C-alpha cells in the first residue's frame, strides 16, 4: 500500500467523503435545537451537495480506479452522481415546508438524506459486489428511517416496516446471488469476475441460479413486476418528499447498478438474463400502466406510474450498447426533473389537514391557481411522453435504441402501454382544468419551492426543447464509461 495510491483513492472518493462529513456535521448540529434550525441544516446540506458536485465535476469522465479496483470514477458514475446530487438537492428544498407542516422539523432528516445520497453514490461508483451492496444498504437504511420519519403517523410507520422487511428480503436474495458468484468465480470484484465469467459456461445450473438470485434482487430494487408489490404501499405511506426521493434518487442508483452489472461487467451472462428481463419489462409496463388507471390516491398512482416508467427503463437496458445506456441515463435525468416537479406540487397541495392525497386535491386547480396548474400540466404531459416535453425525448431515445437493435416488437408494446398510461395523467389534467368545483385551499408557494418548481420546469422543458446538450452529456458519459 504505497501512499500515492491511497491518496488517489481518497481523492476519487472525495465526493462521498464530503457528503458523509456533511451528514455527520448536520447530525451533530441537529442536536442543538434552535428556532430556524431546519433552514440552517437544509442550507448546510445544500452546500455540502454543491461541494460534492463540484468535486465530482472536476473528477470528470476519464475512468480512474481506486481502493484496489473496488471503486471507480468513470463517465457513468460521474453522470449518475450529478443526477443524484440534483435529485437530493431538490428533495432538500421540497422538504422544508413539508416538515414544517407536519411538525416534524427534525435535523436528522437532512442527515439521513445525505446518508442516503452517499449510499447511492457508493452504489454508483462501486466496482465490487461487496461495495455495491454496502452502498445499497447505506442508502436503503437511511431511506427506511426516512419513510418512517413521521413517527406519530401510523401510515408512515407501517410503510417503513413493510419497506424494511421487503427491502431486507430483496437484499437477502441479492446477497445470496452474490455469495454464489463469489463461490463460482472466487472474487467479488467485477472486472475479475468478468474475466472469470468470460470462460464460464452460461448453461451451468449454478451460474444460472446465481444470476437469477442477483437478477431478482435487482428487479426488486428497481421495482419491476412481479417484484413491485412493495412500491405502492410504501410510496403512499412515506412522507411525500421522501417518496419523491425514492422514486428518483433510488431509481437512479438502482439503475446505475443494473447498468454496470448487467451491461458491463457481467455481460457474459446476457443469455441468462435477457429473456427474463424482456418478460419483466413487458409485465412491468403492463401492470404499472393498467393498475395506475384505477388509483384514486395520487401517490399510489404515481407509484404505479413509476413502475411503468421502470419498465421503459428496462427496455433501454435491453437495447444495450452505448445508445441503450445513454437512453437510460437520459431518461433518468428527465424523470428526475418531471417526477420531482410533480412531487413538489403534491407537497404544496398536501399541506392541509387532509393528508389522504386523493387526486381530487387537483380539481379546479386551474381556476384558482392557473400558474401552478400550468406547471403541473407540463409535468404530467412530460410523464405521459407528449412532445415537446422532456418525457417525449426520453421515451423516444429508448425507442431509438430498441429499434436500432432490431427489437421492434418490444418498441411496439412499449408505445402501446405508453398510450395507456397517458390516460391516468390525463385524468389529473381533466380534474385540474375541467372540474367545476373550485380548489378550496389557498396554496402558498415558499421561495424554496419556487426554486424547485423553476428548476424542474426548466429542466422538463429544456430536455424537451433543446435535448441535444443533455443527450450529448449522456452519450459522452456512456461512451467514456464503456472505455
Amino acid at each position: 500500500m504505497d501512499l500515492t495510491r491511497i491518496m488517489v483513492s481518497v481523492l476519487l472518493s472525495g465526493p462521498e467523503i464530503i457528503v458523509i462529513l456533511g451528514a455527520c456535521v448536520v447530525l451533530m448540529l441537529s442536536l442543538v435545537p434552535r428556532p430556524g434550525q431546519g433552514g440552517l441544516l437544509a442550507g448546510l446540506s445544500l452546500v455540502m451537495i454543491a461541494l460534492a458536485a463540484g468535486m465530482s465535476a472536476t473528477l470528470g469522465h476519464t475512468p480512474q480506479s481506486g481502493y484496489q479496483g473496488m471503486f471507480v470514477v468513470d463517465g457513468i458514475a460521474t453522470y449518475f452522481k450529478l443526477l443524484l446530487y440534483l435529485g437530493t438537492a431538490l428533495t432538500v428544498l421540497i422538504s422544508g415546508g413539508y416538515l414544517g407542516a407536519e411538525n416534524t422539523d427534525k435535523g436528522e432528516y437532512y442527515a439521513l438524506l445525505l446518508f442516503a445520497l452517499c449510499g447511492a453514490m457508493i452504489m454508483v461508483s462501486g466496482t465490487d459486489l461487496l461495495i455495491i451492496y454496502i452502498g445499497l444498504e447505506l442508502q436503503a437504511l437511511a431511506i427506511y428511517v426516512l419513510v418512517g420519519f413521521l413517527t406519530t403517523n401510523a401510515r408512515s410507520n407501517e410503510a417503513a416496516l413493510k419497506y424494511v422487511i421487503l427491502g431486507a428480503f430483496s437484499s437477502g436474495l441479492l446477497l445470496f446471488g452474490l455469495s454464489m458468484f463469489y463461490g463460482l468465480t472466487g472474487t467479488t470484484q467485477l472486472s475479475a469476475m468478468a474475466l472469470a465469467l468470460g470462460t464460464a459456461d452460461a448453461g451451468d445450473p449454478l451460474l444460472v441460479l446465481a444470476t437469477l438470485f442477483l437478477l431478482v434482487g435487482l428487479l426488486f430494487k428497481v421495482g419491476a413486476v412481479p417484484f413491485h408489490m412493495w412500491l405502492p404501499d410504501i410510496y403512499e405511506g412515506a412522507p411525500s418528499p421522501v417518496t419523491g426521493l425514492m422514486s428518483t434518487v433510488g431509481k437512479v442508483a438502482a439503475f446505475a447498478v443494473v447498468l454496470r452489472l448487467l451491461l458491463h461487467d457481467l455481460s457474459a451472462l446476457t443469455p441468462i438474463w435477457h429473456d427474463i428481463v424482456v418478460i419483466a419489462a413487458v409485465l412491468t409496463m403492463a401492470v404499472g400502466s393498467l393498475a395506475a388507471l384505477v388509483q384514486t390516491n395520487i401517490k399510489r398512482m404515481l407509484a404505479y406510474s413509476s413502475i411503468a416508467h421502470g419498465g421503459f427503463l428496462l427496455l433501454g437496458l435491453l437495447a444495450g450498447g452505448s445508445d441503450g445506456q445513454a437512453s437510460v441515463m437520459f431518461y433518468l435525468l428527465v424523470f428526475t426533473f418531471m417526477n420531482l416537479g410533480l412531487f413538489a406540487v403534491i407537497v404544496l397541495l398536501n399541506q392541509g389537514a387532509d393528508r389522504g392525497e386523493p387526486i381530487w386535491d387537483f380539481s379546479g386547480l386551474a381556476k384558482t391557481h392557473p400558474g401552478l396548474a400550468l406547471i403541473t400540466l407540463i409535468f404530467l404531459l412530460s410523464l405521459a411522453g407528449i412532445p415537446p416535453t422532456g418525457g417525449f425525448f426520453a421515451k423516444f431515445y429508448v425507442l431509438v435504441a430498441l429499434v436500432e437493435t432490431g427489437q421492434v416488437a418490444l418498441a411496439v408494446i412499449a408505445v402501446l402501454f405508453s398510450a395507456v398510461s397517458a390516460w391516468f395523467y390525463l385524468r389529473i389534467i381533466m380534474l385540474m382544468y375541467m372540474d367545476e368545483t373550485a380548489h378550496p385551499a389557498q396554496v402558498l408557494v415558499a421561495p424554496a419551492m419556487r426554486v424547485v418548481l423553476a428548476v424542474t420546469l426548466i429542466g422538463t422543458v429544456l430536455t424537451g426543447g433543446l435535448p441535444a446538450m443533455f443527450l450529448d452529456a449522456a452519450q459522452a458519459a456512456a461512451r467514456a464509461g464503456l472505455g
Partner: protein
Amino acid sequence: MGFPVLSLLILLPAAAALVVPFLRSTQAARWVALIVLLADFLLAVWVLISFDASTAAMQFGEHYAWVPSLGISYRLGVDGISVWFVLLTTLLGWICVLASWTSITTRVAEFMTCLLAMQSLMVGVFCALDMILFYILWEAMLVPMYLMIGIWGGANRVYAAFKFFLYTLAGSLLFLIGILLLYFNAGQTFDMLALMEARYPVNLQIWVFLAFLVAFAVKVPMVPLHTWLPDAHVQAPTAGSIILAGVLLKMGAYGFLRFSLPMLPDAAHYFAPLMIALSAVAIVYGGFLALVQRDIKKLIAYSSVSHMGFITLGLFTFDTMGLSGAVIQMFNHGITTGALFLCVGLIYERTHSREIASYGGLIKAVPLFGILFAGFLLASMAVPGLNGFIGELLVLAAAFGVSSWAGAAGVLGALTGAAYLLGVYRQMLLGPTAAPGDAILWDLNQRELICALPLLMFVVWFGLYPKPFLNILQPSLDHLMIQTTLSVVTP
C-alpha cells in the same frame, strides 16, 4: 437560405401564445390573438404570392441542427401542396378567433392561447421537413385541442376529449415506431426528402405502412377508427370544430400523401385495394349515417367521414386525376366544412340547439345567414360551379378507372350526400319560420360576416376559376406521381 419566413409563420403565434395568458383583460387577449393570427394569415398569403409555381422543389427552406447526435434537425420548407394547407390553416385561424369572440366567455385568455398554439403547431406540421419535427408538432397538437374540447366544449366534453386524445395518441405512437424503422433503414436520417429518396425492402415497407396507416387512419378518420370524430365534433366549441374539420382531418390525408405514398410506394400499391375498399365503405357508411342524424353537428361530422373517404379513395387510385382530385378535395373540404361548422356555431349561439328539426325558414328570418349557409351546403354537395365539384369529379373518374365498385360507391356516396344536405337545406332554410324554444333570431352582424365572407369567396373562386390553384399544385403533384409510380421496383 433567405428570410426565415416559415419560422416566422410558426413562431409568431407561438410567441403570442406565451404572452396572452398573462394579459389581464379578456378583450386584450381577443385582440392580440386576432391581430397576430391575421398577421400570420397575411404572411401566408405573401408566401403564396411569392411561391415559385414552376418547380416541385421545397421552397423557403430552413435548416438548423437540433439534436445532431440523433440526426434530428429543424428543417422547414413548403411545396405546391403544403403551401395551400398553410394558407388554409392561417385563414381558419383568425376566423376561429372571430367565431369565438362572443361565444367563449370563460377563461378567454387561455382559449386564445390554445388557438394560437394550435395555429403554430398546425402550420409547423405542414412546413416540417424533418420526420421527428413533424411528429413532435403533430403530437403536441393534441394537447391544446384536448383542452379546447375538454374545457370549452358541450355537456359531454370530458368524455369526448379523452376519446379524441387517446385515439390519436395510440395511433401516432405506432407512427413513431414506423419512423424509427425508416430512420435506421435509410442511414440514420430524419430528413423527409432523404427518406423519400431511400429505397426500402418491401417487407419493411408493409410493416411501416401499417404503422403509418393506424396513425393517419385515426386522424382522417377512416371507417373503423372514426368513432372519436362525431363525439369530438359535437362536443367541441365552434372554433374547435372548425379547426378539427378544417385542418386536423386533413393532416391524416396529408400524412398519406407525404409519407405513405412517396416513401412506401410498394406497400401503398400492395395495400391499395384495402384502402380503396375502406374508403368506399367510409363514403357510403358515413353518408348513410349522416342521413339519419338529427343533430346538425353530428350530421356534418358524418358527412366529413364520407367526404374524407373520397380523399383517401383518390389518393390510392395512383392516378394523376385521382391524386389531384384528392388534394383539391382536401383543401375544399377544409374550407367548406369549416364554414359549415362556423354557420352551425353562429346559429347555435343564438338558439342553443343543434336539433335540425327545430329550425325552419331561416332564409326568411335571417337572410344573410341563410344565404351563406345555403351556399356552403351546396358547395359541400359538390354542385358544379362551387368548389366541391371539381375534386369529387376527378376522384370519381379516377375511381372508375381502378374499380367500378369503388366508383359506384363514390357515386352512391355523392348521391347520399346530396340527399342529406338537401334535407338539411329544406328543413332549416325553407318552409315556415321556426326556431327552437322562444329563441330570438337576429341576423349576422359585421364581425360574423367578416368571418364568413372570405370562406364564401374561396368557395366561389375555386368553383369558378381554380386555375391559379392548380398551377401551383401541378408540379408537386407530378413529382408525387413520379415518386409513387417509378419506385415500384421488384426487390
